[in-house]
């Protein structure tokens, strides 16, 4: 199914909660409101014409300007990118959602988004990884723990303002 047809189906169902469509990118994407991710995900998987039963990847991208030479567009934010695929229909889709860098603007409070681990089991580990490295809290995740870093690690390394700790368990960091 072509991207435009997929967009039509999803937009019919979710209307306002689809907040953006970019068709001219190399990988065209739709953007959904953060609160609607799990619901949209379930629809994308179960709708017989779509059948996105395969979640390839979840990526978190931190947009924060730390280097004056590298300008970013728009507000500081965190983007979650879901790459979906269908083995039956052989089509693909990119779904994005944009979160604030901190919940309610309070530094240290991780932004929250509904988990899709109930829709695709792949998401279980991928969301743990995003939580670990990018710092996003997935609501409804069965066990949101760090996966690559040690449990007692502080900070989320893939954030642009992350500072490498000077010491960890007696091991010098710098």
């Amino acid at each position, binding site marked *: 199914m072509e991207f435009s047809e997929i967009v039509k189906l999803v937009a019919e169902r979710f209307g306002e909660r689809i907040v953006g469509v970019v068709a001219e990118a*190399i990988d065209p994407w739709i953007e959904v409101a953060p609160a609607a991710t799990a619901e949209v995900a379930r629809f994308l998987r179960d709708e017989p014409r779509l059948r996105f039963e395969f979640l390839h990847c979840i990526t978190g991208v931190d947009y924060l300007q730390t280097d004056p030479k590298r300008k970013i567009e728009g507000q500081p934010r965190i983007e979650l990118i879901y790459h979906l695929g269908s083995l039956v229909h052989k089509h693909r889709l990119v779904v994005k959602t944009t979160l604030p860098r901190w919940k309610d603007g309070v530094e240290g409070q991780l932004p929250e988004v509904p988990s899709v681990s109930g829709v695709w089991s792949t998401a279980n580990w991928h969301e743990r990884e995003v939580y670990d490295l990018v710092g996003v809290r997935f609501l409804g995740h069965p066990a949101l723990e760090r996966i690559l870093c040690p449990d007692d690690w502080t900070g989320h390394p893939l954030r642009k303002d992350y500072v490498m700790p000077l010491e960890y368990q007696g091991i010098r960091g710098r």
Partner: protein
Amino acid sequence: MTIERVDPELAEFDVRTDEILVNMGPQHPSTHGVLRVVLRTDGEVVLDATPHIGYLHRCAEKIGENVSPRQWIPYTDRMDYLAGMNMNLGWALCVEKLLKLEVPEKARHLRVIIVELNRIASHLVAAGTYGLDLGSFTPFMYAFREREKIYDLFELVCGARLTYSYLTIGGAMADFPAGWLQKCERFLAEFEPVVDELHAVLTDNAIFIRRTAGIGVLPAEMAIDYGCTGPVLRGSGVDWDLRRDGDPWYTRMYDGYEFHVIAETDGRYPIERPGHPVPRAAVLGDCWHRYYVRMLECVESMRLIRQGIEKYARAQGGIGEPIKLTQKLPKGEVYLETEAPKGQMGFMVVSDGGAIPWRVRARSSSFCNLSVLSELCRGGLIADVPAVLGSLDIVLGEIDR
């Protein structure tokens, strides 16, 4: 005095067992690297298996956003270090897609030859060490002897035996040296009978079949749900291979090539070995099938290499020019998956228009394949855990990145 005879199966019920946590790894020969699995056991039965990963985490993605794409190629080598060429290719194709950079015809065939050779090498490790895990030492020697020959061939093209950085963005670092294709053909001629030898010592081995057939059955729906790919997915009978079904940017590398996707459909494999049917005890999706898919893929890879050699010899033009280190990337983001030996390896690059990517991402196939481990081990025996783990063929360098 008479000894009362008790049915031994009934006597088992008298033995009270407690749940015991058994820690397997991170230094354990059958975990294929630094993987720790915590097993909750009741006697010999595994109630739960929880993998703990991250021992080999080297922040590859963080490094990627501080170096230019070509500088990141050596880091991709160190992900799946048993298939470095395939990792190089995945990243190169991803960045090339963003740059809309097409490689010359000759480079395309060079890449097919190289990555398929590496696929064979990776599958040989999988099969050889799998035998080792299950207590059979001989196949390991056969497999590693052949793997060494492939590494010799790689050494001739790029000087390295494990971490190549050979396929690069824009083509390859160097052309094949003189006489290399003949050496490659000689290898294929030598390797072909070895596949049958491996089948004889492993595939059709009665003990091996008893250790793997019907163990760790992964239904197709569960494989898809957990994002399993590669031989793990195809071993469950899903006819899906990115070389045929993937992104056009990737599949056109295989344009004009003929090959089968190895998966059991309608009860039979595309390649049949006369006189050696699938063992009766094997269930679709079990360890034996995952192993068998890899073995048959070696045969398909040989076919692809032979076609590649022929096409390469006829192709015109050079092998492409690597991009400059300071080459600016256009603004945008690209995600591309390729069919690596262990599954679908995805790379993503997000660019803000500079020479250094804003964000890079590596989607690991072994990462997803391993996540299904607890489902496969639950309810099985402790002795089956290495059998299941080996059949998933994971590489920790790729899982932890």
